[in-house]
């Protein structure tokens, strides 16, 4: 479980960084989105990963505090998702404006001379 989660986070983050370093604005925005997924998963995993656990309680059990997942990382990740979503939307608008104003989808607003 830990291995799969960390591999997934690693792959997402790696692809995100690669795309972020690309020269096209669309690649950058997709890269940022992937990176934010990686970060969200990472925050989520700091609460501890368990497989095969009941959502809240197993039937017929009283349960103790140890049975519950830590709610704080979930609250954090929720906030992070909302904020990330909003800023990505804003970035998308700026991207379109930049494309319209400069006539190029290069991040510098102009193509590099070859």
């Amino acid at each position, binding site marked *: 479980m830990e291995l799969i989660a960390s591999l997934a986070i690693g792959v997402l983050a790696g692809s995100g960084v690669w795309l972020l370093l690309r020269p096209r604005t669309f690649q950058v925005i997709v890269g940022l989105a992937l990176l934010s997924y990686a970060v969200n998963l990472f925050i989520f995993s700091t609460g501890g990963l368990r497989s095969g656990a009941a959502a809240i309680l197993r039937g017929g059990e009283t349960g103790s505090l140890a049975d519950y997942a830590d709610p704080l990382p979930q609250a954090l990740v929720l*906030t992070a998702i909302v904020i990330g979503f909003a*800023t990505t939307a804003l970035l998308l608008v700026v991207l379109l*404006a930049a494309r319209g104003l400069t006539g190029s989808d290069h991040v510098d607003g102009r193509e590099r001379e070859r």
Partner: protein
Amino acid sequence: MTGLADHLLIAPIVVPMIAGAAMILIGERRRNLVALVGLVSTITLLLLAGTLLALANEPTVRIYRLGDWPSLFGIVLVLDRLSAVMLGLAAVLGFSAFLFSLGRWHRAGAFFHPLFQFQLMGLNGAFLTGDLFNLFVFFEVMLAASYGMALHGSGVARVRAGLHYLVVNLLASLLFLVGVSVVYGIAGTLNMADLALRMRDIVAEDRGLLETGLAVMGIAFLVKAAMWPMGFWLPPTYAAATTPAAAILSILSKVGIYSVLRVWLLLFGGEAGASAGFGANWLLVGGLLTIAFGTIAVLATQNLPRLAGASVLISSGTLLAAIGAGQVAVTGGALYYMVSSVLAIGAFFLLIELVERGREVGADVLAVTRAAFGAREEEEELEEQEVVGVVIPGTLAILGVAFMTCALLLAGLPPLSGFLAKFTMLSAVLGPEGEPVHRTASALMIGFIVSGFATVIAMVRTGIDVFWTNPVRRPPRIGVVEIGPIALLLLLCAALTAGAGPAMGYMQAAARELHTPVAYLHGVFTGRPDNPR
């Protein structure tokens, strides 16, 4: 927790929030009403900041528990001297930039005023919060508004610089989140005071990871503070932004400095056990490199907005290096320097637009090149004969005086507060007479003095070029609401110089409070006054 006065602490966040929301409801078309709401809000913020500055000047730290939850479970706002100083700066700069925008800039695009209010809300929240995750949330509020502010007025240059600014800051926010979650995973708390208490008892295996998490978070702060090599976004963004937006953005870099001061000194102070002083050398060296980069940038720039951007870099670098020195007296001087430089840079950003108004387009772009090649000399000789005997117009004289004051403040020349600040930091870092000068001290001294010298050269060169070499034919038309804020900011600097004794005392008290955060911890855990552990 019942009196109205107790709720004052949250007012700097609530007032701009309500004002911003009201502005959106009022609608863009009723411009005067929106401006009136903005005026009321910014003046209220000024009064609040003044009150809080006075309230914070006591040995205990005030806290505000939202929903009256105990500090460890709920969200707390903390007011100490540093927060109060930062609130004051934000309020003064906000008021000035707001007044200035009424001249004409607020009409350059949609939703200027609501964004401005949300910007102030984010700033104030970041200065008040006592919780790492809320710091993140307020950072985002502030940044989201600042994206809008940086893009206000649109245009190719703004959108291009704004795109870079957005991407860099989004990435920094992601790093912030990574840091926060690592810290939570290890320490199990995000409350800064609680974290500070737990620092000592972190087991050795986890300590490295926790330090890594805090370092990753620190990168996010340092991106905001524009430390070299993470500050390349700053000069183009600030230069491209509209004037009032640039003035308010200039305090955003100080939010990074504030966070470093708050988090670093709280968590890695003397109480931190094995982690004490973690990363001090990075701050020191990074700060010095930032000063070096800013110095080169100041000398290399050929237009005024970029010159101001480069001054922001120098100011950030100076502060980081001074904080990295890790001495109480130096931090006190650095706080004084921060106030002086934020006011001066704010005034400078506002001034630039007035100076540039009415000049021929591109007059300054090639100024240096032109001087180097000696072109246009014949023309100028002809002009000189006409110019002799002409009285300098009143407007230009005022602008010139303001420009000169800014130059003195930014370069740290006597007699103004910039000099006092640098002098305090240097005399503190050099220590008592007769002791051998430490390497850190000499590096700081060289950095401060060389950067000041470079600023003098750059400002004098630009000043000569703007005011003497090719003066404008007709003095630019300038409204009272435009020159007023500049005068206000510069007069505050003068007041800071005149009242240097009390001001410096306040800053030194703030610095002591930061280096030995007993009052801070005590304040947050008022429920358990004797032994917070």
